[in-house]
């Protein structure tokens, strides 16, 4: 088998997605499986992201491999003008795999083309973050017992929010129904709706959070990210539009779970944390098992 990288969720087939989720479940049951002892994995964070980096580095350690790398690029040869290609070629010589995050979009795809070892994209600007998507899928499967025929209500910034776009792509394998709850300014882009039309997948759009709280299986909340806006007035208009509180959850489906890629700001009240519907902290923990599964799959071990 040639080297396989994970850059965008579309790089994995439905079978590969299910395989990785199955493996993640094994890791959740047994976290100590050090079959990567003797391996070295590079963790290259060209922009800081403590949450994602700690999750990946913990996964690497749990598998028994060693980590080298950096947590922000300000002190590296990149900041002295070395090209990304040269950095990746040099690091490739030392390690068995590269995990990388970079502020520029497409950087991980490019790195995977110049690297001699597998590359895992841990976020390239606003483009892709496939391990987040896989941990979302894992969380859906763990809470619902299945992925097929579920109703997913995506809430918030559906225009710039990459997590919703990738989740939509990945869920399209599993006959879902979508609700898109967003302000007019942040609606799901046309290209994704065209994609759903082409696959015969149903969706509804609304601006009201109350509209579809009671008929969804998954409520996927997102944060409105200031840095994605070029127009500060637009951001001011939409930043606080949705606020989910415990009192709004009296008639929801019993199996309904609330997911959120975290960090949250004001879109989920603290009082929601104590309801049986809150799953976002467990969701973040699931990232560890899913990342262990991704790494072992790409290195040919599981």
């Amino acid at each position, binding site marked *: 088998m040639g080297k396989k990288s994970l850059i965008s969720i579309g790089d994995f087939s439905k079978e590969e997605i299910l395989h990785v989720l199955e493996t993640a479940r094994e890791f959740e049951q047994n976290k100590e499986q050090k079959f990567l002892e003797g391996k070295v994995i590079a963790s290259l964070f060209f922009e800081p992201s403590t949450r994602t980096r700690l999750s990946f580095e913990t996964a690497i350690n749990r598998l028994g491999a060693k980590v080298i790398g950096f947590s922000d690029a300000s002190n590296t040869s990149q900041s002295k003008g070395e090209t*990304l*290609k040269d950095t990746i070629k040099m690091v490739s010589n030392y390690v068995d795999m590269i995990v990388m995050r970079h502020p520029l*979009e*497409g*950087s991980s795809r*490019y790195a995977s083309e110049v690297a001699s070892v597998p590359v895992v994209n841990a976020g390239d*600007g606003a483009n892709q973050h496939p391990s987040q998507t896989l941990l979302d899928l894992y969380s859906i499967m763990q809470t619902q017992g299945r992925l097929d025929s579920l109703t997913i209500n995506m809430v918030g910034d559906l225009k710039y929010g990459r997590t919703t776009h990738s989740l939509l792509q990945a869920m399209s394998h599993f006959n879902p129904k979508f609700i898109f709850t967003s302000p007019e300014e942040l609606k799901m882009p046309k290209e994704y709706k065209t994609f759903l039309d082409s696959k015969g997948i149903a969706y509804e759009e609304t601006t009201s959070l109350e509209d579809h709280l009671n008929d969804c299986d998954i409520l996927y909340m997102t944060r409105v990210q200031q840095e994605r806006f070029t127009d500060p007035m637009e951001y001011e208009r939409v930043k606080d539009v949705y606020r989910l509180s415990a009192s709004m959850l009296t008639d929801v489906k019993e199996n309904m779970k609330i997911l959120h890629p975290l960090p949250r700001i004001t879109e989920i009240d603290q009082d929601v944390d104590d309801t049986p519907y809150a799953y976002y902290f467990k969701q973040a923990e699931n990232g560890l098992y899913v990342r262990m599964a991704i790494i072992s799959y790409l290195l040919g071990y599981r």
Partner: protein
Amino acid sequence: MANNTTNKELVVSALENGTVLDHIPADKVYKALDILNLKGVENQITIGINLSSRAQGKKGIIKIADKFFEDEELNKLALIAPKATVNVIRNFEVVEKKTLTMPEEIVGIAKCMNPKCITNHQPIKTRFTTIDNGNEISLLCHYCEKISDTRGIL
């Protein structure tokens, strides 16, 4: 050439051997030269711009002496001149007429419109998949996965 004197257009531009690219939008002629890598070549090149055309209003035409192209090279022109026609001339005669086919992938000749795309910051050859929306072409960047229009070409 004596038998051509009745037709002025042909007199100035008759080719013994080479390629005539016709029906290029008048404002795309220089881009067409770039795309076909004709800058700095030794061949004799005749260019016509703002010629009147029944179908297009104003058109452009390029005649290149002693040069024959692979279809793959010519098809790159479909991005800026989808209605262009190609006449292959040998011994003053049109021996072949071709129309262009949109290539599925284009490498190196377009710029990604996304300012945060890695290809705009590092020395990387761009790669796009072409998407035909019926009346216009858009380009899906292989790297940043964003869609550009064809204004970014060259």
